[in-house]
Each structure stands twice: as structure tokens, then as C-alpha cells.
């Protein structure tokens, strides 16, 4: 059944597999990246500061309707990072964001860290996120919502053709302008999950500030 050539072939393949396995096992011990290390790297990209605590999540307020949820909290010296996932993305997908909130309740930054099935996530740039959410105090708004002037298009107004892009929006109103409206919806849901959580756990600015002491 097995001639010399076949036996030699099997032996060679097994030896190569075993030696490769041994080499990779040794290197795995040296090059292994823990989940904590991955998290630290992701946090460093979003906010440059010293992580002081990973507060425990209040599960009662971690879920925001069926639109999103808060999964983790990271406390820094002068900011709180809320790890939130927003649903309603393109193709039923989701977007995971880090929402950086200052001690006074103002959103310092929103960064997309992961997504599922969002082909145009690259269109939602840092500039767009900063324009939509940057420096808005979450205690000055109820929740973020879609502006009536969202999107872009052409208005034909009595023969006068006007092309518009984005459109103006009041504070707390988001005008989608990236061309990836589903992804922007998911981002808005993620930020709203963070807003919902913070405002329920710390009902006002004072209690939020006191939470830092």
C-alpha cells in the first residue's frame, strides 16, 4: 500500500509540520499580545493620558433602547472614555466608538475603533466626527438627533437651482455629510448610548464632576 517514496513523503511532511510548530510555539511566547495590551494601544491612539481606573459598569443603564450599548469605561486623570457600540449601520452592522468626555461633561472626541460590514466607514473622517460631536456638552442637549437639513442634494426653487451639502444644524443635531448615512447613524447611536449612560448615572454636571473626586 505504501511504497518507500510515499513513506518518505509522509515523514518529510510530518517533520516539517512538527519543526514549524515548535518554532512557532517558542516565538508565540515572545510575541504574544494580550487583550489588555491591544486595549492600551487602542486607547493611546484616541487619548494620550494615564489610565487610572476601569470603573465598573452600571448594567441598568448600559443598554440604550435597541440602538446601542455601553460595554466598557476607562477613567483617565481628566477624561472618561466610554466604549460604546451603535447599531443600525449599513447592512444591519454596528460601529464601536470611543467617546472621550471631559470632566465638565463636554465631548472631547469621538473615534471609531471597530465596525462590522461598514464599507464606507472611511468616509466618516475625524473632521466630520469633530464637527458633529466635538466640544458639545452632553448636559446641554437631550440626545443627538438627525437634523432636518441632513444630507446633500439639489433644490430647484422657482427655476433657481441650489446645490447643498450637509446643511446647518442646531447644537445636538447631526447633519449627515459623509455619504455614509447608515454608518453615521450607527455612530450617532453609539454616542447616544454613552450620553444615555452618563446622564442616568450622573444626572447633572455637578454629580459628574463630583464623580472625579
Amino acid at each position, binding site marked *: 500500500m505504501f511504497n518507500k517514496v510515499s513513506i518518505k*513523503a509522509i515523514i518529510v*511532511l510530518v517533520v516539517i*509540520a512538527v519543526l514549524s510548530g515548535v*518554532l*512557532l510555539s517558542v516565538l508565540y511566547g515572545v*510575541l504574544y*499580545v494580550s487583550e489588555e495590551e491591544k486595549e492600551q*494601544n487602542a486607547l493611546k491612539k484616541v487619548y494620550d493620558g494615564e489610565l487610572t481606573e476601569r470603573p465598573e459598569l452600571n448594567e441598568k443603564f448600559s443598554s440604550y433602547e435597541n440602538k446601542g450599548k455601553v460595554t466598557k469605561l476607562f477613567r483617565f486623570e481628566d477624561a472618561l472614555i466610554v466604549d460604546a457600540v451603535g447599531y443600525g449601520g449599513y447592512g444591519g452592522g454596528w460601529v464601536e466608538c470611543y467617546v472621550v468626555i471631559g470632566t465638565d461633561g463636554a465631548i472631547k472626541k469621538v473615534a471609531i475603533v471597530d465596525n462590522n460590514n461598514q464599507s464606507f466607514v472611511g468616509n466618516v473622517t475625524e473632521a466630520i466626527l469633530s464637527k458633529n460631536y466635538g466640544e458639545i456638552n452632553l448636559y446641554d442637549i437631550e440626545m443627538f438627533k438627525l437634523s432636518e437639513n441632513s444630507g446633500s442634494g439639489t433644490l430647484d426653487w422657482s427655476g433657481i437651482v441650489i446645490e447643498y451639502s450637509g446643511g446647518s444644524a442646531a447644537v445636538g443635531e447631526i447633519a449627515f455629510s459623509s455619504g455614509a448615512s447608515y454608518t453615521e447613524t450607527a455612530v450617532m447611536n453609539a454616542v447616544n448610548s454613552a450620553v444615555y449612560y452618563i446622564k442616568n448615572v450622573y444626572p447633572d454636571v455637578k454629580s459628574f464632576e463630583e464623580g472625579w473626586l
Partner: protein
Amino acid sequence: MKKNEFKNIALDGLARQNPVFRLILGTCPTLALSTAVLNGIGMGVAVIFVLVFSNLIISLLRSVIPDKVRIPAFIMVIATFVTIVDMTVAKYLPDLYSSLGVYLPLIVVNCIILGRAESFASSNKPVAAIFDGLFMGCGYTLALVLMCTVREILGAGSFLGIKLWDFSIPFFSKSAGAFLTYGLLLCAFNVIYNAVVKARKKKLYGDYMKEKYADISTEEVQA
């Protein structure tokens, strides 16, 4: 290894058998990753590492591996080095790791690496195999960086992540732009290559004829 052999290996890798512009291999990562120069350099260095070490090991084992199982054996060796690169990049360059994404582990099935293992490393000595891997990898990296440069400057108005100007043509950052850029660079490379080869042949032929008929005068030739 003789100087001539070294020169031939170098020229093959960089120009004569350039994997991207002459052999049309490794097209998938070339088109997908060439949006930024840094990604191109990262991918190129990874491919050089895998090519050099897999060529070396395959060359050392060329008389041991039976012909009938050479492909599975080559794949196992290549996969080992790709895994090492994958783990190293994940640990020390996490930004590059997320940029390269699935294309880093896909180096295992990159035709350049298996092709060179099969056509060169398995029938040549280790030193020659190392240099073949090195220069093929360099040829691939240069081609990739060229693609990335064009697409990043035109598509994003930046180079190596540094913003140059506000003007950009987003088309070049998309897939269609990748194909167009690849096609145009392919055409340009081969036009220049053929012109250089033709000029060289003309020069060599001219020198040969001058030498052969050195003793005969022009009038005698014309007569």
C-alpha cells in the same frame, strides 16, 4: 556565487522579471493596499522577509523534499514565516497591522512566493536562493511603493501621511483608480523596459559588428 550570476539575479528581480509589472503576480495586495506609501513599504518588507527565509529553507531542503509533495511542503514553510511576520507586526506595529488587515496572512498564498520557491529556490543553491528572494522582494516593494505614491498623492493629496495640498481626486483612492493606475504604470514600465532592451541590443550588436569588421574599410563594405 559568480559576479555575473549575482548581477543576473538582481536584474531579474528588479526589472526583467519584476513580479508586479512583468510577471503580473501578487496583484491582489498590490491593488488593495496601494492607497498609502507606508502600507506599501510595510507590505513590501513583510514580503521580502518571507521570500528570503522561505527560499533559504526550501533551497536547503531541496534534495530532501520528494517531488510529489513539494507544494504542500513549500506552503508549510511559507506559512511558518508568514505567521512569524504576522505576530511580529501585531506586537510592534499595531497601526500597520490594522492597515494591512487580512492581506498580511494572505501572503501565504501570494503567487510570487510560491512561484519563486517552485521555479528557483527548489533548484538552486541557498546563497543564490537568498539573493533571488531579496531582489524579487525589492522589485515587488519598489513596484508597490510606486503604485502607492501615485495613488496617495493624487487620491489623498498626501505623501507618507504628510498632507501636501488640499487638492485630491478621490477616484484614485477607490478600486477603479487602483486598476487604472496599475494599468498605466504597467504600460509605462514595459514601454521603458522594451526601449532600454532595444537600445542595449543595438549597442551590443553595433559593438560586435565594429569588432568583427574592424579591418575592412567603409568603401570595401559599401562595395
